[in-house]
């Protein structure tokens, strides 16, 4: 039996999952109760819950795919743990790659780790590399939010505009990447190109159509699903496009 996927490793993974779900349920229940206390309608809370679950499905599958990608070198369990707590793909790949280089392992992540020492070292580096927010938050979060809250509450119109502007700044970075960013040269479809533009524009079009339909036919129940559905439809369209359009056209990526 491979030591990286032994019963002991699965036990560790299971405990991490228990912790994370327990914590999330705790916050969920408290927020739900507070929402009812504030007079938010139950319907609205349920809508939030359902649309968030739907919204998360596709990205969660993508995260699962990265677990599988890393599993080649690290076994299934460590990538699973790392992507359940804090992890994200670019961090974990970089961290694992860096430790393999430090230990002079040839081939890097493309090769399965068989040395227990390298394996343990990789887990240490991946963990220490990503724990800082857990130290910063208990120390500073309350102060940061109190300061910002004070600034925001003094002028409601300005503060609404500022929080919208911050969201838009975030969205703009991803839009810019879909339009002009270079991808990983080993991955077809990762850089800005025909497919990223198809996905971007079609999801905008789907979203606008859903909004129009909701408004025209007064479909309140559909509103929370407009966004996740637009996303999934746009992804489906990208898959269809890459099957039906000429390959020389759909694989164009102008930034490499």
């Amino acid at each position: 039996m491979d030591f990286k996927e032994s019963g002991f490793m699965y036990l560790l993974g299971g405990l991490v999952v228990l912790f994370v779900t327990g914590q999330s349920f705790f916050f969920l229940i408290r927020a739900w109760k507070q929402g009812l206390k504030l007079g938010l309608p139950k319907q609205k809370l349920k809508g939030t819950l359902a649309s968030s679950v739907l919204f998360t499905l596709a990205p969660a599958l993508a995260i699962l795919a990265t677990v599988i990608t890393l599993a080649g070198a690290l076994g299934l369990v460590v990538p699973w743990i790392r992507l359940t707590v804090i992890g994200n793909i670019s961090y974990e790949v970089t961290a694992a790659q860096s430790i393999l280089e430090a230990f002079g392992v040839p081939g890097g992540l493309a090769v399965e780790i068989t040395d227990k020492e390298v394996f343990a070292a990789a887990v240490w580096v991946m963990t220490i590399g990503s724990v800082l927010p857990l130290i910063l938050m208990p120390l500073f979060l309350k102060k940061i939010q109190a300061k910002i809250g004070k600034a925001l509450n003094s002028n409601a119109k300005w503060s609404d505009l500022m929080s919208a502007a911050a969201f838009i700044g975030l969205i703009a970075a991803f839009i810019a990447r879909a339009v002009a960013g270079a991808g990983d040269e080993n991955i077809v479809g990762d850089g800005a190109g025909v497919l990223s533009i198809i996905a971007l524009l079609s999801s905008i079009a789907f979203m606008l159509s859903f909004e129009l339909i909701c408004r025209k036919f007064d479909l309140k129940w559909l509103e929370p699903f407009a966004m996740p559905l637009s996303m999934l439809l746009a992804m489906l369209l990208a898959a269809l496009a890459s099957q039906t359009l000429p390959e020389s056209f759909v694989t164009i990526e102008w930034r490499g």
Partner: protein
Amino acid sequence: MKNERTYYDKVHRWGKISSISALAMMLSVPIAICLYFDIWPSAAGVFKGLLKIVPLFWTVAIIEVITYAPLLGAGGTYLSFVTGNISNLKLPCGLNAMENAGVRANSEEGEVISTIAIAASAITTTLVIALGVVVFSPLLPYLTAEESFFAPAFKQILPALFGALAAGYFGKYFKISILPIAVGIVVLIFAPKLPVGTLIPITVIFSLLGAHIMYKKKLV
């Protein structure tokens, strides 16, 4: 007002406890592995590996906590930073939920809605990954393999996700959206390989500055 204060205070207390427990749990994983396999990697090797990533990762972490905290709300921030995948999942999810519910990000209603959305998202992600690892790991390669029908779809998650999000936001805030998108594209023209995590703080700062100036000049 008094009620608001107590709820926020409680959230921060729970948040502190859960962050510290999460920290302890995370560190106990490598410790448990070393104890169980009775193998302790050389400190010099680990240090050498850390040296390459910590300066970058920890700087980004500081910027992320400051940038995302006001957007996610208190409960949302504590949860997001334990479960990760913030800019590509938790933040858009919370955003979408607040937009749908018609609540302001920095109100107590916004705090509640964003916490519910992010908690639901965290639970879904955790369960999907866990189920996937246990049940679907033999099947998954067929879904995401290079030759599968769905493979191109999975590579376009981010454009599809942020396109739909943009449609809702840019319609309402068209004027302040132009500058950050333009800045993002210009930066990428000169540095196409810049990771999106580094680009986010740049576009956010320009977006805030632009919106502030337009507000002062009474353009919005």
